[in-house]
């Protein structure tokens, strides 16, 4: 097998990685916001279950969560929902997991805005919702961008965990070359893919951060 052929096959695995990456962000970023509102809620009925949920999700390994979501429906309830779609099991786990992490980042960002600004908004005759969307939100976005970019870059590499349920993503695609062709180098070669993609993301976040840096002259 030529270098080109192997790159092509690895790229097919990389597309699965990219798909998981993109879909996870698409769903977990908004879901995280909802969860953060839950954990900031004054009603214990909302905040206690949400905080417990975040504790469980952040307190157990993502790999274990993938295994539980994929295998337990069939084992305990005799209903293997993900028998024909392993990717869906991985996606659901990733969305829930990352939403939990994002929710804490959002909470930190929202709570970092001084209470005085809400009071000032009230004095100026703005409602609480208006104050949040027109005054607070953009400051929050600016504050949370560095931790979010950190999580996003971690997500790129966490996608490799889905090989535990035998989805052929980048690493698994490379590992199959060992069994099939007795070639070890494709496994190390996958590092190039991750590195290049994370490089692009880093440049992107640098660009956005600069754009948001509107107070500096």
């Amino acid at each position, binding site marked *: 097998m030529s270098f080109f052929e192997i790159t092509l096959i690895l790229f097919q695995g990389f597309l699965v990685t990219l798909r998981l990456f993109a879909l996870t962000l698409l769903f977990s970023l908004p879901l995280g916001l909802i969860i953060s509102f839950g954990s900031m809620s004054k009603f214990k009925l909302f905040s206690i279950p949400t905080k417990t949920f975040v504790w469980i999700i952040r307190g157990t390994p993502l790999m274990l969560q993938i295994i539980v979501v994929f295998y*337990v*429906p*069939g*084992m*305990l309830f005799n209903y*293997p929902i*993900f028998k024909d779609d392993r990717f869906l099991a991985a996606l659901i786990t990733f969305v829930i997991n990352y939403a939990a992490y994002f929710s804490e980042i959002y909470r930190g960002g929202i709570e970092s805005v001084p209470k005085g600004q809400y009071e000032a908004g009230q004095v100026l005759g703005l409602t609480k919702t208006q104050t949040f969307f027109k005054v607070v939100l953009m400051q929050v976005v600016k504050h949370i961008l560095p931790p979010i970019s950190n999580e996003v870059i971690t997500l790129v590499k966490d996608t490799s965990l889905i090989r535990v349920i035998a989805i052929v993503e980048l690493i698994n695609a490379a590992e199959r070359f060992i069994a*099939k062709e007795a070639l070890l180098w494709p496994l190390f070669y996958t590092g190039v893919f991750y590195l290049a993609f994370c490089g692009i993301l880093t440049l992107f976040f640098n660009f956005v951060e600069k754009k948001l840096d509107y107070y500096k002259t």
Partner: protein
Amino acid sequence: MKKKISIVICLVLAAVTVFTLTSCLGNGDGDTKTTDGSSTTAAPVVKDLENILANKKLVIGITDFEPMDYQDANGKWIGFDAELAEKVCEKLGVTAEFKLIIWDKNIIELNGKTIDCIWNGFTIDEDRAANVTFSKEYMINRQAIVIHKDNAEKFTDIASLNDASFTAEKGSAGEKAIKANATLKDNKYVGVNGQIDALKEVLSKTSDAAVLDYTMGAYLVNKEGSDFAKLMVLDAEITAKEYYGIGFRKGSDLADKVNGILKELEADGTIKAIAEKYGLADSLVKIK
């Protein structure tokens, strides 16, 4: 006070979850083990056959394992086990769906019902029989010791491996072979996640010798252009003979059905023809 109550509730919930999971995963401890690996009487009958006939497909858990299961240039699964499985499914009146799995999760896949059987050069053994119902044995297998060629002079037989460090796949027949060998059982040993990982250990010289299926070891070491060409299979017997069988869910009614079909396919010469195609005719055993 409320806080304390909620913490207690959380802990209780967590404990219950862990308990149900472990009790569910750890079943089979009380079942009787049989030495030949055939279906046991202690386990209740699991009605798989009905489901499979209704869905018109049998989901077969496999890995890349030439010459048992591997893909041709068009991505079609071929190999001795793959072709035999196709024939058996034909007789059952269902289609064979090959599902690539991670080998060390094979029994979890089976219990999670994400696959219906393991059919991938699956060595029959007593410990596995606690969680799996095996078909009748259909092929002979043995364990091979693989070493680095740099050590070819140092290691020539089992006795010379006295101080060598060993590696094998966790829970594999290879691991059991090491632990059962009088000379090697106290050697330094590390269990890894797969048979290939064991070869990687030897290649990087983090272990001196790996024990794995002869079929796989010989294939990977001798293949042209192999990254494992620096390794070699040691000409020494570590175990007595062992056999390949098909693994079904514990107590599955599918096992008896497939045993019957295997006998038919043996009688009409189908099994022999497939074995000859993959150069495995010598390894066939008569189906009991």
